[in-house]
């Protein structure tokens, strides 16, 4: 249940409809995430993976259902969603770096604007994080000078600079040239190893298998099956899961 303090995120009976109910993107989905868990969401195109992820920080407003973050129902009235979003990092398929700001400004803008850190502190944090992902020499460049892989590592750092309690990834490597996928996945693996709670929508089955604690398979807006990587990849119970796994492996 949502009030269970074991769960950092808890989704109850989430429904998301578009166009006045003509499209049902999420059909009564429930999901619990424990602190430190890495969850991979897989499934065919249009199955509702992005909608699910984007609902967690209310980039999509649910039609019905509840979303708990640290026991607080984000969908209830009077919740300051901006405050909670500071603790929920998000990384997008297309990076969405701010092109009019340098790499450093991209990273420090939110912490400084939201008075989380002073300009000095936040610059130090940013440089430390850049060092860790091997991009400290890019601090004063503009995003359009960088490769896709570099952009995505910066986008991860930008989210981390807010010191989030959970990180959401929506196909973070899908827009990358194949030779750049590895450098981004390496950063994510490191994060997972440090104990970051992560929810990752991905087509990288190798990554899901290696890093995730739990795999969630979605189809037609429903969570069809969930389980450990071994169970989902080697012993799927549902025929649709089986078909999907056979197709992608």
């Amino acid at each position: 249940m949502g009030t269970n303090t074991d769960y950092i995120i808890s989704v109850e009976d989430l429904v998301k409809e578009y166009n006045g109910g003509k499209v049902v993107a999420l059909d009564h989905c429930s999901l619990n995430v424990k602190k430190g868990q890495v969850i991979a969401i897989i499934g065919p195109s249009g199955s509702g993976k992005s909608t699910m992820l984007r609902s967690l920080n209310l980039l999509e407003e649910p039609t019905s259902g509840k979303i708990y973050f640290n026991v607080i129902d984000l969908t209830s009235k009077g919740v300051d969603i901006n405050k909670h979003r500071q603790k929920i990092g998000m990384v997008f398929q297309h990076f969405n770096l701010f092109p009019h700001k340098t790499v450093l400004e991209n990273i420090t803008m939110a912490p400084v604007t939201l008075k989380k850190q002073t300009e000095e502190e936040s610059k130090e944090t940013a440089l430390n994080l850049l060092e860790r992902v091997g991009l400290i020499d890019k601090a004063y460049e503009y995003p359009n000078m960088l490769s896709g892989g570099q952009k995505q590592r910066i986008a991860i750092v930008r989210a981390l600079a807010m010191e989030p309690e959970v990180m959401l990834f929506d196909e973070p490597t899908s827009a990358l040239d194949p030779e750049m996928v590895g450098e981004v996945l390496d950063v994510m693996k490191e994060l997972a190893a440090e104990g970051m709670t992560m929810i990752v929508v991905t087509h990288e089955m190798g990554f899901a298998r290696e890093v995730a604690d739990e795999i969630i398979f979605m189809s037609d807006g429903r969570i069809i099956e969930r389980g450990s990587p071994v169970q989902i990849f080697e012993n799927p119970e549902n025929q649709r899961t089986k078909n999907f796994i056979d197709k992608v492996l």
Partner: protein
Amino acid sequence: MFWDWWQSLFVDMSSANFFNFSFLPRYGYAVIQGVEYTLILSVISVLMAVLPALLLATMRLSKNKAVRCISGAYIAAFRSTPILVQLMIIYYGVFSIITVPKFMIFGFIDSTRFIPGVTALALNSSAYVAEIFRAGILAVDSGQMEAARSLGLSQFQSMRLVILPQAVKNVLPALANEVITMVKESSVCMVLGMAEIMFTAQTIGGSTMISIGPYMLAAFIYFVITYPTSKVIERIERRMRRGDKH
């Protein structure tokens, strides 16, 4: 035949001659002031339109339907009626209630006419500039707003720090074009006796009895101001677009 007519244009300085510019030595200074008046009037009008236009554009993009409608109605009203009508209503309506203190701006612009005139042009222009801003904001990738909001920034902070700085770049050429439009449109202010280019031409015509020449000169001046400027803006715009691709 033709040749006779052509020569007569320059020899016979009849008052209805198209190229009778014999008023220039005496009225040259008035013409120059008229040009200055027009430029000041149009630039200030568009600058004054920027803030209301920003407000209108944000209202137009609001989630609240009532807010959207108010802004939409304003824009529709000002874009669908002649600027001359707006000028009359604002001058005789609004500024019969508000009394403008009389003083001279730059030594030759009478405030009691200039301020109502600028108000009318700015209100008119804000409807057009609002649509320019709206297009500029919509042209910014929606992922930018999502990224800003996902970091915990409010709608307003995201607008100010992420969306608007990028929209401004999209919008500058269109804004410059709006000034050019205003240079031409501001000629309606002659009916209020504002001493811009057209009013100056009319005055010269009246006192010299040269009927066409002053207006030919006015047309020439408008063209010389607007045509090269619009070409320059076009070039800058093309270069900016090329820069965006990389």
